[in-house]
């Protein structure tokens, strides 16, 4: 065990943590917006899958990564449109609709992939990475932290932008009010429905981009059910972050490390069954829930449809 923590091991662990944590960060930030506005988006997993499939197919046929990410985001947005229409406009049960969206996305993406590629799983050419000058030349941590796909830096930037949006903009305050006291927002003359629809659609777009990152950069290929619960982990991250984007960033990196441990241990030559490693992130969620149970915060009006004049 003494030679486990070599430079190569640490470098591959950190690099893997960033790669695995980025989709969690993007999706977690998206879910945070939706939860702030009072919509528990259980369909996030489905939005990730749709993004993963649409993003992969688009890049497969066009060869362009930016167009792939955009298409993945739009795929997630269209899925979220269903969620917004049924849950926000028609006030239907958010949990039933969320499960239905996840199930439908699982079936539909697997089905479409089957008809497109039959049983073959083609790979994309390796995604380009942007090395940040100077920082990227640092020993060990330089390549692990500062030599990634451009989306990774955008995700971190998004985190900072959201801090500003939540604190300093009208939209951010409206989001908060829509989740905490929708009646007050309504009385102030702002549409609760409009605010929530906007929140759900942004979540869908970000979920789609996160899924596209998983298939296009993380795996390089699309597999049925490939998101494997990442959407649900992102929901937990958003719940535990209590509305602070920076906590999502920290949590995403932590869970990313858990996910990356498999590959890192293989690099180090330690042989542990993959099933044991696969349990780690979920075990972490459960432990975190037990330890920090009292600190998780959800808006009072979360999951409750808003109808004007109803108590």
């Amino acid at each position: 065990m003494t030679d486990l923590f070599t430079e190569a091991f640490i470098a591959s662990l950190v690099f893997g943590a960033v790669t695995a944590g980025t989709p969690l960060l993007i999706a977690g930030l998206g879910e945070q917006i939706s939860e702030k506005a009072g919509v528990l988006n259980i369909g996030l997993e489905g939005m990730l899958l749709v993004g993963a499939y649409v993003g992969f197919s688009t890049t497969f046929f066009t060869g362009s990564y930016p167009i792939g990410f955009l298409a993945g985001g739009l795929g997630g947005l269209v899925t979220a449109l269903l969620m917004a229409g049924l849950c926000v406009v028609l006030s239907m049960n958010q949990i039933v609709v969320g499960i239905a969206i996840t199930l439908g996305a699982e079936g539909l993406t697997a089905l479409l992939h089957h008809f497109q590629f039959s049983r073959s799983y083609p790979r994309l050419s390796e995604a380009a990475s942007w090395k940040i000058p100077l920082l990227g030349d640092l020993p060990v941590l330089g390549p692990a932290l500062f030599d990634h796909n451009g989306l990774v830096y955008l995700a971190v930037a998004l985190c900072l932008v959201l801090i500003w949006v939540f604190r300093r903009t009208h939209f951010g305050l409206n989001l908060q009010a829509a989740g905490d006291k929708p009646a007050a927002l309504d009385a102030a003359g702002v549409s609760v429905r409009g605010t929530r629809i906007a929140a759900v659609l942004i979540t869908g777009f970000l979920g789609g981009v996160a899924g596209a990152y998983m298939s296009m950069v993380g795996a390089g290929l699309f597999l049925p059910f490939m998101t494997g619960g990442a959407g649900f982990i992102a929901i937990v991250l958003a719940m535990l972050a209590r509305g602070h984007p920076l906590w999502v960033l920290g949590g995403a990196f932590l869970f990313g490390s858990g996910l990356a441990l498999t590959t890192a241990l293989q690099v180090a030559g330690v042989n542990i069954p993959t099933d044991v490693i696969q349990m780690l992130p979920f075990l972490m969620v459960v432990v975190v829930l037990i330890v920090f149970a009292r600190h998780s915060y959800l808006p009072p009006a979360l999951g409750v449809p808003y109808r004007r004049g109803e108590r």
Partner: protein
Amino acid sequence: MTGGGERERAREALLRTLRIVLPIAGALIVGALLLVALGKDPLAYYGYVAKRGLYSASGLQASITRMAPLLLIAAGLIVAFRAGLWNLGVDGQFLLAAVCVAALAPALARELPLPVVYLVCFATSIAVGAAWSLVPAFLKAVHGINEIISTLMMSFLGVSLANVLIKIPFNDPATTVPQTATLEVADRLARIGDTTVHWGVVLATLVVIGVHHAVEHTAVGLRLQMLGANPRAALHFGLNVRRLTFVAFALSAGLAGLAGAVDVMGVHGTIRADWNPAYGILVIPLVFLARFNGYAVIAFVFFFAVLLIGGESASRRLGVPSFFVLVLVALLMLFFALVEFLAHVRRARASARP
């Protein structure tokens, strides 16, 4: 006036039927459009599904056999949903109990008479399933943590743990692929007459009916319903909400565990690594569609078992992967929710009228 009352009753009955028929028809029609878009003949697909799942003797028996685990999971979900608890972790509870029983049953069958083996295995499966619900129940009862997330996490954890158990401690060294020891066919649950249907189906049906009546007509059932309708009111009424939450979770997860035992001891006899039928997430919409009514659950589970068995045949024969059944279930849920919503609007309009 009596004529009007009768007409009103007939109208209500018609609307009740429509609330069930419309979502199914809607899901089948949209599913058909999807098949057309994929270049498949929807009529041929649905026809083949009906033929292989319903009209052939072996297919019908396979469908009825498949009902056993689905019914037991549904019975557990009725308990949880009535208590307002979203137990979405039934897949982990099911698989973990199934794997434990798969390891236990062949070992016990060598030593003990069969009835004892069955009783011990059933009790074990219930205990394992219930144990896997302790953490979500604790988080919900003590800290008010949303059980949707915690049960899902425990489910993912349980499925992985089940695989670890199959690959390491419970692995049968005599086989090349990782799997548990096999329960001899003679030691499995007895078949009914000349059919391939085992008695577990009868047990499961009785459990669903029993749970239905217990929830609807007993004091415990009333407490569960109060908890589901309004937890705060239940607390003010003097109910021990914490204990009730633990009990409801344990019952729900225990029945999911029993489903695992019946499926292993009635049909499979052994479990291979990475086997996960994911029944739970598919049964959830059915329990909703049946509005938590046990008898309606039996009808829907039968419909669904036919779809599953027929769909499995069709995927081999017609080249439509069984993923399509997932899409159908999702459509079913969406249409069901939509019809419920329309019925709600209609009631609201009717009550608003002077």
